[in-house]
């Protein structure tokens, strides 16, 4: 596990320096989105790929992270009006919170919701879980739309500092944080895969009843999976308000996140941590290019069609295709 962590940290730092080289700010903006999807899809895959429970509510977990940041930032701005004068100076020492702290908080909030969600729905068949996640996204959006403190339906502005001391533009700082999160997500996913936990997840995916009968604590494992997955998604969402500058419920709860976080792992392959990474890098780069060159609606159509095509033709994704090819060559 340690060598893998070192390698991924090195790759992340290398990537950061490489993107920094041409000195084009837009590269960071585009790369941030792709790396953010690496975190989201890896998180999705811990539940969807390893245990076989499809989560359609990725956008909701992502938005929870984003909106907990908005709520805390708004709280920091209106500190003096909201709390009694005696405590205010003390709170001023803590607020405004730095983004790494916001990421942790966003993760905790989403993780708790993931746990609750799993607790209510995971006792039932898989399909119910999928539907419930979809419905949950709608409800959380309703709550946020009705919550005036974070801007309601019209959205909230978040002022992004221009510079980050020692690193250059703030966007570079956000990108560096997101890279760190991606490393964290990938290391976690890979560690799970090779642990007792991972084998338990795989047993649930292959045959839940048989797993339960042979003593795998299925409910507890599934709850671990939903919590972990939700936490990582929330963490990915927490810096988002600072990235976008103006957060609306529609953009935070956008179906695009739900679709991409399913399509990318499915296209890459859901059996291991490599699949979501490959799928995201490929599809993410394609999307960013299409966004600039064609239009965003066409780009979404492309994702949908690719998703349908891959689940029909290559059920194990690109990684599965490559593995089959290698196996066939070895057999010769």
């Amino acid at each position, binding site marked *: 596990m340690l060598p893998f962590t070192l390698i991924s940290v090195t790759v992340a730092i290398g990537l950061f320096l490489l993107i920094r080289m041409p000195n084009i700010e837009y590269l960071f903006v585009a790369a941030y989105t792709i790396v953010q999807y690496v975190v989201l899809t890896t998180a999705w895959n811990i539940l969807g790929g390893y245990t*076989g429970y499809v989560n359609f509510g990725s956008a909701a977990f992502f938005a929870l992270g984003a909106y907990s940041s908005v709520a805390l930032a708004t709280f920091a701005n209106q500190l003096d009006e909201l709390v009694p004068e005696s405590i205010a100076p003390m709170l001023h020492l803590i607020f405004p919170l730095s983004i790494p702290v916001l990421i942790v908080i966003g993760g905790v909030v989403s993780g708790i919701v993931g746990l609750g969600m799993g607790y209510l729905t995971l006792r039932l068949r898989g*399909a*119910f879980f999928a*539907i419930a996640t*979809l419905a949950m996204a*709608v*409800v959380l959006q309703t709550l946020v739309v009705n919550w005036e403190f974070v801007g309601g339906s019209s959205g909230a502005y978040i002022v992004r500092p221009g510079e980050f001391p020692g690193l250059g533009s703030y966007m570079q700082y956000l990108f560096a944080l997101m890279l760190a999160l991606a490393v964290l997500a990938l290391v976690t996913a890979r560690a799970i895969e090779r642990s007792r936990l991972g084998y338990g997840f795989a047993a649930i995916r292959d045959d839940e009843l048989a797993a339960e009968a042979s003593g795998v604590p299925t409910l507890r494992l599934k709850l671990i999976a939903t919590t972990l997955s939700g936490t990582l998604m929330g963490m990915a969402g927490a810096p988002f308000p600072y990235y976008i500058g103006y957060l609306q419920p529609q953009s935070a709860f956008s*179906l695009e996140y739900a*679709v991409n976080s399913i399509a990318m792992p499915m296209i890459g392959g859901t059996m291991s941590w490599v699949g979501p990474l490959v799928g995201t890098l490929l599809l993410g780069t394609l999307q960013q290019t299409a966004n600039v060159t064609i239009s965003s609606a066409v780009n979404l159509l492309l994702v949908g069609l690719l*998703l349908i095509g891959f689940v029909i033709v290559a059920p194990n994704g690109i990684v599965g295709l490559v593995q089959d090819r290698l196996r066939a060559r070895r057999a010769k």
Partner: protein
Amino acid sequence: MSFDLLIGAIVAGLLLGGFYAAVTAGISIAFGMLDIVNIAHPAFIVLGSYIAYIINVGFGVDPIIISVVMLPVFYLLGTAIYQVYYLSFEKRGQESLRGLAFFFGVLFVTEVMLLLAFGVDYRYVEAPYIGPSLHFGPIDLPLRMLVPCLASLTMFAVLQILISRTFTGRAVLAVSQDQLALQLMAVDPIRIKRIAFGLSIATASVAGALLVIIQPVEPSVGREYIGRVFAICVLGGLGSMPGTLIAAMLLGVVESITATFYGPSWAPAIAFGFLLLTLAFRPSGLLGR
């Protein structure tokens, strides 16, 4: 809480519930009887709305008549989708994860194609019964709600008769209970499922026309109905048509009361509350199988 307001909300809720029954009928067949988690169903309903809209604006035909004429087209679309679904997923035994992703993709593609073709503008139809209302004392019966409700109940009755009285209909019920037993009686379960799924998508044609009568439609409006239809279907008890009808009415009334007393922006949360409570306390629904 004013009494008149409450009565008005309940009546409006029953009308709304009648319409929800039409929206849910297809899911009740696909999910309740065939175990096909067709989350793309609301997208087909919106497709139905757009077809009704195009023909209505072009030729001035009544949307409900259009939807009845379009039934065979939707039926064939449904059988085609089932064929793809069967060959790609059911036959390989991968329907759970990949089947869901497949329908999610279909939902998304349908929505984006409508978006590319018609843009994000709200579209509406014209018909003589949109506008006027009947009045009975304090009760208001807007015809644009009453007509869809009656059309929906008619469709529901026809479906119920088809399923409970005809041989094929009974075979559909049988396929949801024991596929092997059906095979032993020399009935091809795949054919039965294909017919049933075709029927399920066909209901989307009518539901779509009713939707565009009730409210202006834009491509992503179907999403609001995903939570609702599954909540109704689960609450009613999987595969039970009478249960679906009762649950639809119940959800309509509760939503309408919430919208009247707390504001319409809270209404979408109701369906989810219903769904979660049902799943947590009575997973077999009101009249479950």
